[in-house]
Every structure is written in structure tokens, then in C-alpha cells.
């Protein structure tokens, strides 16, 4: 269990704006993702927990040990914190072999158990064959696994991962995810993961904390956050939605419906409690909730005419980007007979619409 309440202020420098981190969260077993754009304070948070950076005030509690307490003047040295840290560049010692890297991490433990521990870790992370090599002789995936093994071998109380998937290609990324799932299951060590990749949160995290400019803007299970972003900011950070500016024209609680104006067109949606007619709001709709058809006469119910700007091929799905910042994702088969068509209608569902 880790409990963090920290505040850290950086004044503006000659070529940097001021930055303040003001964060409070707790996480227990499982994987917690710190999600946010670069410069949100994610890595700084890890560095505060590991003790590389001293916060201005607050408290960091790991299990039953206070690692930092601004008021009481407690700042435990990094070496005594037992926080496994997997660095973005792995930070494997280049002058040591892989085995020596692991040895270094258990030097304080009794000599007898050391060899067995190292052998066990090498075996578990499929590194036995390359144990005698130096880091520069290893592949990216092997370095990645070695740095995780090195962080875990001292039995840390929390595992901190700084953008572990950065720079890995798709197969290695999948391999990393399965390694981390295995770690989560076998070691039971709480994992704190820094990422700017929404898919990664989905793939790994039990809980996620959305950070923006040093503040937590939303936290909860990824599924809940993706379904209910708390604000336009969060929705933008997740980068998964169409966000369209609309005006509420009518609200009818009796029939559970509403009418929204988008540009020159009207859409029908569900009733939005707590909103007023005339409110300017953002319509939130996932690209895969929309469907398209070639334009043919007047748009029908809940359809909006739009011009196709470009298409992006994705595995499984085709992403169509239209004028008015509308993106639609459909199975390729649904549109393949309309190649060359520029003018389309986009159909909105009336039930699944949400506003922020």
C-alpha cells in the first residue's frame, strides 16, 4: 500500500515556465497507472517516491514506513526505501554483465542465498543464456526484462516503472505487458506505472490517475474513466473521442430526449439532467459509435453531411476523418465499395450521446 500526498514547486527559470506538482493518491495491490501528457509531473512523482527528489511538503507512506514527511523533517535516503525502479533508459550498468547487474542488487543479502536468487531470476525472465553478456550486447527486450528483474530481486515493496513501453515495437510491447501481468500475479508487488499511452492503461492498469499540469484531474478504473471522462480536458488527454461543440436547443425529460445544434444541423440525443436550454456544451462520442453512408439527397434522421478529408488504415478498423473534426471508425468492409466518394453523411446514435 502506498499513500502519497506531495507538493513541489519549481520557479520559472530562464527558459522554463514555473511548474507545481500538487498530488494526492493512494494505491494498494495491483497496477496503478499515472497517465498524462509529457510535462504533467508523472516522472517527478516517481522520483519523489524513490527519494531522488525531495518534495517541498507532504507525506509519503509505503506500507507502514514513512518515507517522507515534510512537517516532521523525515526524508529517507533512496537506498533505504526499497522501491524497485525501472528507468526509462533501463540504466543497466554498462561495465557489468547482466548477471553482475543482478548481483549488485542483492549484495547486501547473505552470500548463501545470493547465487540461487540470481539464477532463479535469470531463469524466470528467460535471461540465463545471455547472463554473461554486457548490456550493449543485448536486445531491447532483454534489457527491459533485465531491468525489471534487477528491480525485483531485492524484494521491493513497490515497483516503479517509468514509461516502460517507450521505444518498443508492437511485439516487444505485448511481451512486456505479459511480463508485467506475470509479475503482478507472481510477486504481488504493487506496481506504479507512468505512461502517456491510453491503450497501455487499458492493457495493464487496475486503477489509473489522470495527471495534467501537476494535478490529478480524475482517477478510477480505466473502464470507468474511458466511459465517463470527468471533463473535456480528460477526454482530450485520452484522445479517443470526437469532441464537438454543440448548443442545447430543447430538453424533454418526459420523452427522455433532447435536441442539439451542431453547426447548421440538429441532432437528437437523450435527456441531459441538470442542463439548461441554450447551454454551450461538448458532445462526446467515440469514433466507433458513428456510422457513415454516401451522401444521397437530404440527410435523414440524426445524420450530418460531411466531407471526407482522409482515411487512415488501422488493423481491423478504418478511420475516416471528416470536415468539422469528426472521426469515424468502421470495419473496412463497410465502406470498401465506395472508394473515391468524397461527400458522406455521418449518422449519430441518439442513445449513446454524452455531453460535458
Amino acid at each position, binding site marked *: 500500500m502506498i499513500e502519497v500526498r506531495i507538493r513541489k514547486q519549481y520557479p520559472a527559470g530562464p527558459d522554463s515556465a514555473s511548474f507545481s506538482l500538487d498530488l494526492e493518491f493512494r494505491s494498494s495491490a495491483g497496477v496503478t497507472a499515472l497517465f498524462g501528457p509529457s510535462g504533467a509531473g508523472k516522472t517527478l512523482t516517481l522520483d519523489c517516491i*524513490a*527519494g*531522488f527528489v525531495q518534495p517541498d511538503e507532504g507525506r509519503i507512506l509505503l506500507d507502514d514506513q514513512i518515507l517522507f514527511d515534510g512537517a516532521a523533517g523525515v526524508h529517507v*535516503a*533512496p*537506498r*533505504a*526505501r*526499497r*522501491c*524497485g*525502479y525501472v*528507468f*526509462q*533508459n533501463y*540504466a*543497466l*550498468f*554498462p*561495465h557489468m554483465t547482466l548477471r553482475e547487474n543482478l548481483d*549488485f*542488487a542483492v*549484495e*547486501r543479502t547473505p552470500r548463501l542465498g545470493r547465487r540461487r536468487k540470481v539464477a532463479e531470476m535469470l531463469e524466470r525472465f528467460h535471461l540465463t543464456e545471455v547472463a554473461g*553478456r*554486457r548490456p*550493449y*550486447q*543485448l*536486445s531491447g527486450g532483454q534489457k527491459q526484462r533485465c531491468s525489471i528483474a*534487477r*528491480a525485483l530481486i*531485492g524484494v521491493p515493496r513497490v515497483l516503479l516503472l517509468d514509461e516502460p513501453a517507450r521505444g518498443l515495437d508492437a511485439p516487444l510491447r505485448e511481451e512486456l505487458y505479459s511480463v508485467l501481468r506475470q509479475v503482478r500475479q507472481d510477486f504481488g508487488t504493487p506496481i506504479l506505472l507512468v505512461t502517456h499511452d491510453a491503450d497501455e492503461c487499458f492493457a495493464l492498469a487496475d486503477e489509473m490517475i489522470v495527471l495534467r499540469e501537476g494535478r490529478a484531474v480524475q482517477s478510477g478504473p480505466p473502464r470507468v474513466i474511458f466511459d465517463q471522462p470527468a471533463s473535456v480536458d480528460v477526454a482530450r488527454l485520452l484522445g479517443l473521442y470526437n469532441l464537438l461543440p454543440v448548443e442545447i436547443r430543447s430538453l424533454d425529460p418526459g420523452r427522455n430526449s433532447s435536441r442539439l445544434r451542431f453547426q447548421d444541423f440538429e441532432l437528437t440525443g437523450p435527456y441531459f439532467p441538470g442542463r439548461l436550454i441554450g447551454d454551450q456544451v461538448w458532445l462526446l462520442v467515440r469514433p466507433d459509435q458513428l456510422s457513415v453512408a454516401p451522401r444521397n439527397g437530404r440527410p435523414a434522421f440524426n445524420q450530418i453531411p460531411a466531407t471526407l478529408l482522409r482515411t487512415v488504415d488501422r488493423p481491423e478498423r478504418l478511420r475516416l476523418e471528416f470536415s468539422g473534426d469528426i472521426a469515424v471508425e468502421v470495419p473496412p468492409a463497410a465502406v470498401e465499395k465506395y472508394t473515391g466518394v468524397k461527400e458522406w453523411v455521418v449518422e449519430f446514435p441518439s442513445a449513446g450521446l454524452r455531453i460535458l
Partner: protein
Amino acid sequence: MPPGATIDWFPLWLSLRVAAISTALALAIGLWLAWILANRSFRGKEVLDAAVTLPLVLPPTVLGYYLLVLLGRASPIGHLYELVFGGPLVFTWQAAVVASLFHSAPLLVKSARAAFESVDRSYERAARNLGASEVRLFWRVTLPLVRRPVLAAGALAFARALGDFGVTLMIAGNIPGRTQTVAIAIYDAVEGGNGAAARVLVLIVSALALAILTLANRLTSNPFGPRQTAL
């Protein structure tokens, strides 16, 4: 070489011995200073750095004068030395060691500081994160990582110590068979018309310096094997 003229090899051996001892001292003191300059932040840090660099730019006679005042028989340090070792420091071969040290250590501190500062901070963070004490971090991680540039700096310091003239002359003097180092012996030989001996010593010193610089260059390239070609 005219018949009958022999070369006195003592100055060469003395110089090698003086340079070796002063390089060892420079490594011990210089690495410590360089590490402090690279890792600690304190008031007056850049003043300290400038003071350490000063011997590089001061005329050797100025440096020699300071050392004479500082270590002479009338000074507290000189007096203490005399009490402990039973003889004065100035105008002995040990004084030549001090001269070489002040002549060569600044170079070593400069390059060692740059080497320490070039170490990726994440290695030191990783070592601390894995429970290493500061001492273990230094011996097991930082020093091995800067081993080659530090050895190269040591080689340069050795070469420079070998070549000191002015400071040595000021505080160790020119006593043949006792404090006459090779640089001074060459000066003596030229002044005394012994061109043949001067030529031989000049060639030997040049060859030594060239060899040391080549070694230093090889040390500063290619650390930890080829980076790009993975096996």
C-alpha cells in the same frame, strides 16, 4: 658524441620517479576534488574550481615563489615538515614532487571533473535505488564508468609532471645528482655546451611524451566495446 663524454642518466630516472609519485598523489587528491566539484553544490564552488585551475595559467616562477614562501624553512608547513622528517623540504627531490604535483594536478582535476559530470545520472540513481551506499556507488559504479578518461587524465598528468621546469627550479633547485630533473639537465647541458647529451635527452623525453599521449588517446576512445554492433 665526442669520445669520453658520457651522459648522466640520473636526471631521467629522477624525473620518472618524481612524475610517478606526483601522479599517484594527483590521482588521490585530484579525483577527490574533481568528484566534489562534479557532485556537490556549495558556495564558492566555482572559486574553488578557478583556484584549482590557477597553476595552469600562472607563470611557473609565480607558482614557485608561492610554494617557496609556503613550504620554506621559515613557514609553519616547512617547519612542521622539518620536525617530522628531520630535514627541510625545499631543495630536495621531495620538493620536486610537490612542484610536479602543482604543475600537473590541475589538468587532471579538470578532465576528471568533466568525466564525472559526463556519467549519466540514472546509473547513480539506479545504484542508490538498489541499496548501494555512497562509497559502494563510487567504487563499483562511478569510478569504473570513468575509468578510461581518468586513466587518460592520469597519463596526461604524468607527461606534464615529467616536463616541469620552472617550479622545480624554484623550489627544488638544480643540484646535480640530487634534484636535477631531466628538464633542468637539458637546460644545463645546452648552457654548458654539451649539445650531444642535450640531444639524446630531448629525443628520449619527446618519445616518452608521444607514447604517453598515444596511450591517453587510445584510453579515451571506445569504452565498453562497440556500441552499435550487438552480437
